[in-house]
């Protein structure tokens, strides 16, 4: 067992436990975005930052990937952590303001504006879908492609994947996806898929040939015909 202190409370956890798990065990709220139980930690969004160490050696780490260490002193809500977290939310808002998940995060942390150039990305590269597909669906149909600003998620060669089992797991976990599809009306940000019990695309004949949750979306494909 490893003994550490979180916000002044002592806790002992199994070896290999992450700081996030330890904090949640004590009931301290630590917001996360790219973390999901059942998927391996990835550390992409940095929303789960906590401060460890003391004095000049104190530093911010992502709690979802940082394993508990003996005697570690963790603060989940110090001024520095809160500031960093709000900045991360601002940056997320700058890249993907349509996401309900990100909007909720902003509202929960009282972030009322963002000061950067506004963009409307359809993906924040959190990697949830990739891990879902690989680790839970055992499909490995989608993955990261490219690098830097050209990095994107999708199937190899943008082709309909033979590996995909059309489970929809990737859309289910995607924080940006709920508003991703515009169905056939690009000006309407919401296709209604999440609100409707039956997404409109399911009724199209070519549904089974297409990967609607991926780019290209089923509905958009259908529109081209």
């Amino acid at each position, binding site marked *: 067992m490893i003994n550490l202190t979180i916000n002044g409370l002592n806790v002992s956890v199994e070896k290999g436990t992450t700081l996030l798990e330890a904090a949640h065990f004590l009931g301290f709220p630590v917001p996360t975005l790219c973390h999901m139980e059942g998927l391996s930690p990835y550390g992409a969004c940095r929303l789960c930052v906590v401060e460890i160490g003391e004095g000049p050696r104190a530093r911010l780490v992502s709690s979802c990937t940082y394993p508990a260490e003996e005697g570690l002193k963790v603060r989940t809500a110090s001024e520095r952590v809160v500031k960093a977290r709000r900045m991360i939310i601002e940056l997320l808002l700058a890249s993907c303001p349509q996401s309900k998940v990100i909007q909720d995060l902003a509202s929960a942390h009282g972030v009322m504006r963002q000061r950067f150039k506004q963009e409307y990305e359809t993906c924040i590269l959190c990697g949830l879908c990739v891990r879902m597909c690989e680790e839970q669906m055992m499909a*490995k149909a*989608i993955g990261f492609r*490219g690098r830097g600003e050209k990095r994107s998620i999708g199937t*190899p060669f943008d082709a309909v994947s033979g590996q995909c089992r059309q489970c929809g797991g990737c859309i289910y976990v995607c924080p940006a996806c709920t508003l991703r599809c515009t169905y056939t009306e690009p000006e309407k940000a919401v296709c209604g898929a999440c609100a409707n019990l039956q997404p409109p695309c399911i009724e199209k004949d070519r549904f089974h040939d297409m990967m609607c949750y991926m780019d290209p979306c089923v509905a958009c494909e259908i529109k081209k015909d």
Partner: protein
Amino acid sequence: MTKAAQPKETLGLCSNCIHLATCTLRGDGTQPILFCEEHECFTPDEIREIVEEHDLALGGIISILESIQSKYGYLPRKALEAVAKETGRSLVDLYGVATFFRAFSLEPRGRHLVSVCLGTACHVRGSPDVLRAVEAELGVKAGSTTQDMEFSLETVNCLGACALGPIVVVDGHYFSQVKPADVPGIVERVRAGLNVIDVKTDQRLFPLTLSCPRCNHSLMDSRVQVDGLPGIRVTMSFGDKHGWMCLSCLYGSRNIVSEYEIPEQTLVHFFCPHCHTELIGSVPCPECGSAMVSMIVRGGGVVQICSRHGCPGHLLDL
């Protein structure tokens, strides 16, 4: 497609292709063999061979892809699928690696690769204008290949020769201080062939790209042609003479162009024109025992030549 050329020899993959005689993809047959989707002469066996040559531990993927890229000039989709099948890795991972590194291309590349440097130094010296000129000359945008498969144009961010910028590199030949007006001339020369030597006549004659062993700056100078190729520029000194000299980059050729006439049997000191270090070799000349001059061969290796003018002594260690 390009002029219908007659392939001179049968190199590897295409050799058993029945379309060999009329194939337009391979130019005159001396170019690297491109993977030929047109005639499907690609077989999974070749991929299997490549895969078997490599260690399949996690690191093996990149070197497998490198081998395929060097064999076909790019990474054909079918080849990637075959590698996925052979190695048991998922196509997603391979595709991720292939799109991550700029050295890999998923599109067939042209016979000549033109790289325009857009690094900071070249940028302030006007390389965007050079790029526009090249784009206009070739009729393609950066990152694409001309319709006739002759030229691929790409941009790079610094080639480490900033002082000579703007730099344009074509098939490993550096063109320095390029102005937009120079571009048509460069393209013209590339079309005519940068390597206009008959390699067949003497197998020992092959071009080397040399650089300084200390500062690693390229010694190649495209402004002075020796044997029709960019010369190896060094600073020389003998007696009270001090000037430049360009050696032939053809290994085995002893032609030089120099500022001063050098009397036979004179001991000449060679210096790097960039960092001014004397290029001293590690061993005495095997022929006459004089000091040797050493230079680094791009791609690995050292070449040493005797510093006594007229002495044929040389060593090549690749």
